[in-house]
């Protein structure tokens, strides 16, 4: 592999530096790094971030290859600046055996756009009844460390307790989709004044908060770590904040859409805004941003959820939950967090690369992610131009699906190039 010299990149938003990459590894960093045979990239004005890591991606393969494949989803990931994604288990068949997770992992390697870290199901078939073979998945080639029934909640307290305990043996983590099922039967949108007015079944905040509260206490009781998926309410933030103050082993994620969009968007009944958990109030959005800034919420995770056109081109009740997220995540975070002064680029690197890699335990081993931009580290890099503004065009997406909630919105920042172990997995036309 030839060497690459990235010139004048602002590493984590700092002063311009040159980054020399050879054989997939950062070999020099500083000003005036040079090598005659290297491909030179002029990164003047661009921010260099460690390759982003998504802890929550739906790649839909196997089973719904009409919506997304591992190949298309990871291509979208590379375009969004990601070098690793955690593929959720709610495929068909469900990723509840070593066989399925290895298949997904292998498809990721073959595609080569980003490393795919499969998430294993907690229970067989996501049914919430019997534990899946968590150990077998952990020991498989996929090396699963994150387990989740995402899409449904592990609502049985006893089962959740056992799962939390069991994964301690291989340093796994349960990522909980916090949704009390009885409180959300038939629920369609955030419960509040608007749901009452629109006649859509309300999805109360307490349905999330009750599970978050229970699970941090269960995790404390059994001494396991628990990760809360897509935190969406101010109340959940308060619970997690309190738990962290007490030193409890809880981590939490927030999606880009919950950092930007509010339930007011539902007023036109456009199912592009239908998502689980639902878009919440402006007060919730403000609390989530603040929590991400102060570290109460550890990471941003996309919950990239592709759906075919017909799943959204219908009445609200009949529509599927979920939104695309990989390609717009960094722009939304820049808009909601960086441009508002809540987070600097080093903070973005932490919330979107270091911390998710740490939680997913993919920050070590042969091919680690979420490592600092430093000599000797793998060259997983994302170059961002923060000065651009782009109108989101769904048809330009690498995803097979088009269900972005940002269609027509102007968002800041462009991922100009993504490097996975020194190899360029994405570049815009503008750089050479």
């Amino acid at each position, binding site marked *: 592999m030839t060497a690459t010299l990235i010139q004048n990149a602002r590493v984590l938003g700092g002063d311009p530096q040159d980054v020399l990459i050879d054989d997939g590894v950062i070999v020099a960093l500083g000003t005036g790094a040079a090598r005659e045979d290297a491909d030179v990239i002029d990164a003047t004005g661009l921010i260099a971030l460690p390759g982003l890591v998504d802890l929550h991606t739906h790649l839909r393969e196997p089973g719904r290859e009409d919506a997304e494949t591992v190949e298309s989803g990871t291509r979208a990931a590379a375009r969004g600046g990601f070098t690793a994604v955690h593929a959720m288990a709610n495929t068909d068949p469900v990723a509840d055996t070593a066989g399925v997770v290895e298949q997904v992992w292998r498809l990721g390697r073959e595609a080569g756009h980003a490393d795919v870290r499969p998430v294993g199901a907690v229970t067989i078939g996501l049914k919430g009844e019997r534990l899946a073979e968590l150990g077998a998945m952990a020991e498989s080639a996929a090396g699963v460390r994150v387990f989740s029934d995402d899409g449904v909640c592990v609502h049985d307290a006893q089962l959740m307790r056992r799962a939390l305990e069991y994964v301690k043996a291989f340093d796994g983590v349960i990522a909980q989709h916090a949704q009390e099922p009885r409180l959300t039967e038939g629920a*369609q949108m955030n*419960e*509040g*004044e*608007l*749901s*009452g*007015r*629109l*006649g*859509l*079944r*309300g999805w*109360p905040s307490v349905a999330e908060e009750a599970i978050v509260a229970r699970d941090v206490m269960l995790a404390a009781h059994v001494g396991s770590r628990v990760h809360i998926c897509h935190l969406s309410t101010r109340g959940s933030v308060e619970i997690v904040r309190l738990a962290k103050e007490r030193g409890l082993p809880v981590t939490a994620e927030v999606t880009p859409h919950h950092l930007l969009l509010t339930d007011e968007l539902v007023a*036109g*009944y*456009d199912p592009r805004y239908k998502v689980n958990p639902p878009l919440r109030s402006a007060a919730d959005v403000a609390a989530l941003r603040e929590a991400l800034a102060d570290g109460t919420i550890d990471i941003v995770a996309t919950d990239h959820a592709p759906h075919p056109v*017909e799943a959204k*081109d*219908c*009445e*609200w*009740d*009949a529509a599927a939950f979920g939104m695309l997220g990989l390609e717009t995540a960094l722009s939304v975070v820049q808009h909601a967090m960086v441009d508002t002064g809540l987070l600097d680029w080093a903070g973005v690197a932490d919330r979107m690369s270091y911390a998710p890699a740490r939680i997913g335990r993919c920050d070590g081993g042969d091919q680690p992610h979420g490592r600092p931009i430093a000599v000797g580290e793998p060259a997983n890099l994302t170059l961002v131009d923060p000065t651009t503004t782009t109108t989101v065009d769904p048809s330009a997406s690498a995803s097979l699906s088009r269900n972005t909630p940002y269609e027509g919105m102007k968002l800041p920042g462009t991922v100009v190039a993504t490097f996975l172990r020194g190899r360029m997995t994405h570049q815009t036309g503008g750089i050479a």
Partner: protein
Amino acid sequence: MIRHLLSAGDLSLDDATLVLDTADEMARLTEGRAVKKLPTLRGRTVVNLFFEDSTRTRTSFELAAKRLSADVVNFSAKGSSLSKGESLKDTALTLEAMGADGVVVRHSASGAPYRLATSGWINACVVNAGDGTHEHPTQALLDAFTMRRHLGELAGKRIVIVGDVLHSRVARSNVLLLATLGADVTLVAPPTLLPNGVDAWPCATSYDLDGALAGADAVMMLRVQSERMNAAFFPSAREYSRRYGLDTRRQRLMPPEALVLHPGPMNRGMEITAEVADSARSVIVEQVTNGVYVRMAVLYLMLAGTNSEEAA
């Protein structure tokens, strides 16, 4: 006039008054006449698109459209492709291809008429004939029309709406329309059947029916499905009836001239006793008659002229 009638809240005071005044004329033009038919909508096609059974609403719209000489096509879930899982979109495209000028839609999903009107699938005017637990604007218009005929202008009149507000599209549309018309509305229901956020609605709320009846000019009873008790909204039909049903004792708490309304179909013995439903102050049967006039007015105003976009 608005292009689609999706929510009672879309009607300004002028729009609402225009519809009610026009309905008055429709009544005068057809009541007691040998020939009830007017040629106004000749050559226009009105499609009744009913994804949910409602013989009375469909019949009312059908009669209204036919009295205006429109061609009426009934699409219902039974006996058409709707029951075979054809999507709302495909149905809409079919109607567009058939040249529907107006689509009257009833759907179990809240907001389905919005989707029809705003997704670009069809050009026809859309009239919401009841969507899920959202709205039923023509019901609110016929209720207001009925009350206005007896009480005069509704500004300042005290209207009490009782029952399952949470699941009632009739209540939502009535609150919005009556607020526009300047009436004082009080919703009365057990706390479980009032929606979260009802405090922000343009009305008062109460859990106490007896207390609300004293100054009422009209009392509207909502249908309560006994299935609700299985979902723990209330303990039993008997307890509901005792606390929130309108019986002769409670009717005596109302001023003697106060009206009793019900959108139908009634559960006699549940939310209203037979004596009250059939009493002299009950205008429940009249509501049905008035429904045709109000729907004629809506169809006339929406379909007879060119729509304002074309004219502009």
